[in-house]
């Protein structure tokens, strides 16, 4: 007890003695609204800033222009893909060092991917690697290694897929595919990525301090193979409250203000003489949509779904609720995604929607439900209230149902939620990430679309293995027409720009191609 008391007092004192993070030379100060929980990208599906800055991947997706990206060599200097699209051979860069001084070898890569698929790891990001031959057996505990993973020599890794998968390279650029060091990571066990002492990567920054729910401090890696980062230190603070965050920014305690956390402040910053030239904005490869559950009456009728599409005045929502910072979307793929093409515009026409409802047997309108989760960001309940008012004109008498998020998830898993609105941003730059998620056989049910169209299911499976990119894109564009235009199974709303405001001393801040808040700060400079 006495010992514990001493410990408590000691840590209380240290927390008070900690230095204030006021302006230090050459330190970039950013913030996120939630603690990232871990630097281990295998163990998280939503906080990628630490993995992106502390680790590297075999392949990286580089932002080439606003909303555009290219796959560039990372830890793999070059690679070859076999004719049949099944075998990938990666040649690793020479002399890349981990933060602890160890040299990267092909065995580390094999270890990293095997670790993800090892059931004992309990990894969350396994979807990245399930295409590798033998991955499923490893996940199911039926094998002790993954048959498709081989180190040919110290610098060469060969990965064999069970079936061709066109987006495999794009997947390897995802933060979850970060490369670890075998010896270090094995020793760290399940503590890997949780503390500075148990974190080790090859990336531009080294984790120096991690205080849960408060901050993480990263320091530039002097020996980084691409050359040292431009800033000396990177401070990542956890700030939950949006108004507090804005005050922190205006008091110059934060360098980058992510408007995603406080969208209501958009007009202020765009209208302010002090800040308007310091806004950095870029498109986001993500789509706001309205889900339609065909298992719920009256949405089993395509005419009702069509009417629902037409009854929402998307432009007004975009203009008034999101201050016009974005563009309407009419397909499944948002702008910026590989294979994106303009889709047939969806018209806003409440009168016609009303007619369609009458045709479907609801001349006096129809009662429907819209669902939302209580602890979602207020953005969603705001949108629902607006949409509820808009669609009333066409005859939809909508009731908004609010449940707890956990209950929502449980109901959705079995395909039983009412229509809801959400956003999906690309995990990796490939249409499969959208189509498979929403309209594959498993996705259609577990995301409560119940769009049970066997042809769509088959096409989505087929597209995954196609190697001719032009043909593949054509298929996705046809699928878009079928799903959105013909079957009206999905209501695309819009994609938004992602805006940040930066302090004048921040230079070279580029919004990442996918528009994520999680990004790599390697190129950012601070004066």
């Amino acid at each position, binding site marked *: 007890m006495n010992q514990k008391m001493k410990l408590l007092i000691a840590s209380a004192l240290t*927390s008070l003695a900690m230095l204030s993070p006021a302006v230090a030379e050459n330190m970039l100060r950013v913030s996120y609204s939630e603690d990232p929980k871990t630097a281990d990208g295998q163990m998280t599906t939503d906080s990628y800033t630490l993995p992106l800055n502390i680790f590297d991947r075999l392949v990286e997706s580089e932002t080439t222009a606003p909303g555009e990206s290219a796959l560039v060599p990372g830890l793999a200097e070059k690679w070859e893909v076999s004719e049949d699209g099944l075998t990938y051979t990666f040649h690793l860069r020479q002399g890349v060092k981990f933060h602890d001084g160890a040299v990267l070898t092909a065995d580390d890569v094999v270890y990293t991917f095997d670790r993800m698929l090892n059931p004992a790891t*309990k990894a969350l990001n*396994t979807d990245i690697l399930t295409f590798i031959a033998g991955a499923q057996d490893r996940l199911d505990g039926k094998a002790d290694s993954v048959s498709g993973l081989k180190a040919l020599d110290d610098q060469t890794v060969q990965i064999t897929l069970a079936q061709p998968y066109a987006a495999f390279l794009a997947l390897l650029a995802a933060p979850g595919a970060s490369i670890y060091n075998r010896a270090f990571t094995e020793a760290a066990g399940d503590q890997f990525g949780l503390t500075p002492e148990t974190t080790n990567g090859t990336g531009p920054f080294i984790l120096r301090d991690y205080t*849960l729910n408060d901050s993480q401090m990263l320091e530039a890696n002097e020996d980084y193979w691409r050359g040292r980062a431009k800033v000396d230190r990177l401070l990542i603070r956890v700030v939950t409250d949006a108004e*507090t965050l804005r005050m922190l920014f205006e008091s110059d305690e934060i360098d980058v203000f992510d408007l995603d956390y406080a969208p209501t402040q958009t007009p202020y910053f765009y209208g302010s003489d002090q800040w308007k030239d310091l806004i950095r904005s870029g498109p986001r490869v993500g789509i706001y949509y309205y889900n339609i559950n065909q298992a719920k009456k009256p949405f089993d009728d395509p005419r009702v779904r069509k009417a629902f599409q037409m009854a929402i005045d998307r432009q007004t929502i975009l203009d008034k609720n999101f201050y016009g910072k974005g563009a309407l979307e009419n397909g499944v793929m948002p702008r910026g995604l590989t294979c994106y093409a303009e889709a047939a515009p969806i018209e806003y026409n409440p009168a016609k929607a009303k007619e369609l409802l009458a045709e479907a047997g609801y001349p006096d309108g129809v009662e429907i439900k819209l669902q939302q989760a209580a602890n979602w960001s207020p953005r969603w309940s705001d949108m629902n209230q607006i949409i509820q008012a808009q669609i009333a004109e066409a005859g939809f008498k909508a009731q908004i149902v609010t449940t707890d998020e*956990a209950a929502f*998830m*449980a109901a959705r898993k079995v395909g039983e939620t009412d229509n809801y609105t959400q956003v999906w941003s690309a995990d990796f730059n490939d249409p499969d990430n959208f189509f498979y998620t929403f309209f594959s056989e498993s996705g259609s049910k577990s995301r409560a679309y119940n769009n049970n169209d066997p042809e769509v299911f088959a096409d989505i499976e087929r597209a995954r293995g196609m190697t001719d990119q032009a043909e593949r894109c054509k298929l996705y564009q046809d699928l878009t027409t079928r799903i959105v235009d013909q079957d009206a199974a999905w209501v695309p709303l819009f994609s938004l720009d992602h805006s940040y405001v930066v302090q004048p001393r921040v230079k070279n801040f580029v919004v990442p191609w996918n528009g994520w808040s999680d990004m790599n700060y390697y190129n950012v400079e601070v004066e």
Partner: protein
Amino acid sequence: MLMFALRRILVSIPVLIGITLILFIMLNVVPGDPIALMMKEHGSPEVIERVRAQMHLDDPLITRYLRFLWDALHGDLGTSIKLNRPVTDLILKAFPNTLMLAVCAALVSWLIGIPIGILSAVRRDTFLDRFCMGFSLLGVSMPIFWSALLLQYVFAMKLKLLPVSGFYGWRYMVLPALVLGWSSAGVISRLTRSSLLEVMRLDYIRTARAKGLGEAGVITRHALKNALIPVVTIMAIQVAGLLSGAVITEAIFSIPGVGRITVNAISSRDMPLLQGAVLFATVLVILGNLVADILYSVLDPRIRAQMKKEA
């Protein structure tokens, strides 16, 4: 005295077990999946299913509860599902911050509450009395997040006297302590007032007055000493109460305390963490009450006698 403390502790054990059981049932019989919540929009059903099984979340309720109890008895509160760290560690690291906030807030509430209470009692039923009581009520009558926002805006953003938020030194503590402390100053001032009024009716004060001592002398030299007994004893309870009441203050001022952890645990259905945090908070409340009772008995001889009888 020792017997009394021991008895109180023994009585608290079923209370603790009851609380963990209620929590366990409440969070487990309703649908809700910590893994699905952790993966947010990006979870695929297959992965969720598999990780659930790997974490033994599919074991029967009673098995999991007994396992929890058994481990807790050995000082092991388990591992947080979402944060993947030992619960005991998480709480012990966060606790000093919350304790600091609670103690500072308590100090603020005494600094505001006690003088106001005395002033009100002395000027009983005057305009000053009403005004003072009104002022101390102000703090209780404002939603904490609202008053916090106003104070941040005025003192940090406009006047630039204090930092907006964070936890890096005493200057960072001022606003949160003020917000939280003010919110419980009302209780202290009312207690001081009523207790002082009561004492002043007692015989020995009348005697002191009769001796010709001035009113100020009567109060400072005689009445106050006894009047503050209940105030002192409530302090222990108050600190315990503030510890758990810090939830919102911590969220707004980005203080990495126990409250943040708990809110997180509830919303993410992180059972082990929530159990640990609530157990911890509850133990504090029980301890606070115990300390209060003991203090009371030490300060007030009449109670000491009664305690002996009870034990």
